[in-house]
């Protein structure tokens, strides 16, 4: 099993690597297109600001590579947001993998959302063994609008897509690598996806 975490300069990817290590897998950090294409599973992480993360992807040519990948790909947090059509953050055009838009929470709630929230309406094998209303750790100011590609929904002032899926592409808004045993179960499920 070759797991590659795309390393394009956005965010704390060590935690994701450590989470896989706890599960018994050595995940590799790479920005090399050949290495990414040859992986069995690809993690697309991201923390920080959308437009600068997107420009880092463009610089390395990863913006054209990622949508063509055939193996299971998991976007995490900003990674998932960049897989959407667009983001209000820095007026960013996304990779267009998920047919939805990323918007900022309005100020009826505290922004960023920070802490543990529940996920519901769970779909796909990504959530095998994860119970409805399980808690996941969230840290974000922007959210993906709920749509027909949602495979998990969370409420924070409104219902938003806390996980998305299209074909071999998956995305989660929360941080499975920081979400205790439930998060580890999700990462394990991802590794086991065909």
């Amino acid at each position: 099993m070759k797991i590659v975490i795309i390393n394009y300069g956005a965010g704390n990817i060590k935690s994701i690597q450590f989470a896989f290590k706890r599960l018994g897998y050595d995940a590799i950090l790479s920005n090399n297109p050949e290495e990414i294409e040859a992986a069995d599973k690809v993690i697309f992480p991201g923390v920080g600001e959308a437009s600068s993360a997107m420009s880092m992807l463009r610089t390395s040519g990863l913006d054209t590579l990622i949508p063509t990948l055939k193996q299971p790909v998991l976007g995490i947090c900003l990674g998932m947001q960049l897989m959407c059509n667009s983001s209000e953050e820095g007026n960013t055009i996304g990779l267009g993998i998920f047919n939805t838009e990323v918007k900022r929470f309005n100020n009826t709630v505290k922004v960023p959302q920070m802490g543990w929230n529940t996920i519901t309406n769970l779909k796909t094998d990504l959530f095998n063994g994860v119970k409805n209303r399980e808690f996941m750790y969230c840290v974000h100011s922007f959210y993906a609008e709920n749509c027909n590609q949602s495979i998990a929904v969370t409420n924070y002032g409104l219902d938003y897509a806390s996980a998305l899926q299209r074909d071999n592409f998956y995305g989660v808004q929360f941080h499975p690598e920081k979400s205790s045993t439930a998060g580890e179960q999700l990462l394990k499920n991802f590794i086991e996806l065909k």
Partner: protein
Amino acid sequence: MLTKRIIPCLDIKNGRTVKGVNFVNLRDAGDPVELAKQYAVKGADELVFLDISATLEGRKTMIDMVLQVAEQVNIPFTVGGGISSVEDVDVLLKSGADKVSINSSAVKRPELINELANKFGSQCVVVAIDAKQIDSEWKVHLAGGSIPTNLDLFEWAKEVEQRGAGEILFTSMNNDGTKNGFANEALAKLSETLNIPIIASGGAGTVQHFVDTFKEGKADAALAASVFHFGEIAIKDLKEELRDNNIEVRL
């Protein structure tokens, strides 16, 4: 629904927890990594590690500890103490810390908050504020509370938010160590005037104090040290009691 967070805080000196910890089933109560793992299992929502090492050697040991915690613990954690530059933060985040907490260095040079928020994102920037109420005014204090300033707590908190902090950790020096409850009036005012999460700190003694700080103090999270370290309050019992008081928690 987003839940209220319970955050144990560990003081670290030269890679070891200080102030002592009295946990059963712990091989080494001084080992922060062991302790962090225990807290994660017991239901803590996050952890805060405060580095009180005064030496360069102690600082290096701290980075080692951060790496080990990130490797072995599956909940988020914040590191504070002795952080005064973008470089300091870069090292900690690269070692696996989820957030950093800055205090005196932000007062001395407020631009640091902007720099950190721009480079690493607001979500990982916690600004800790120690304040003391003197003649009905809340004044910010520095260096672990030893140096008073003329800064007003609420004005400073507003500036901190505007500069891009993702969260505020407010410690009331009047309450800290008293075990008489949190400074709920000031907390509620912070929570109502700002739009970022507020962590209550200082004064935890009983389960009821936590209920009060979430209800009256409108805090988003509550931090405590000794009541957890000495097993006076078990996190699971605390959370069950909070739930019974209609406060949303992760159980």
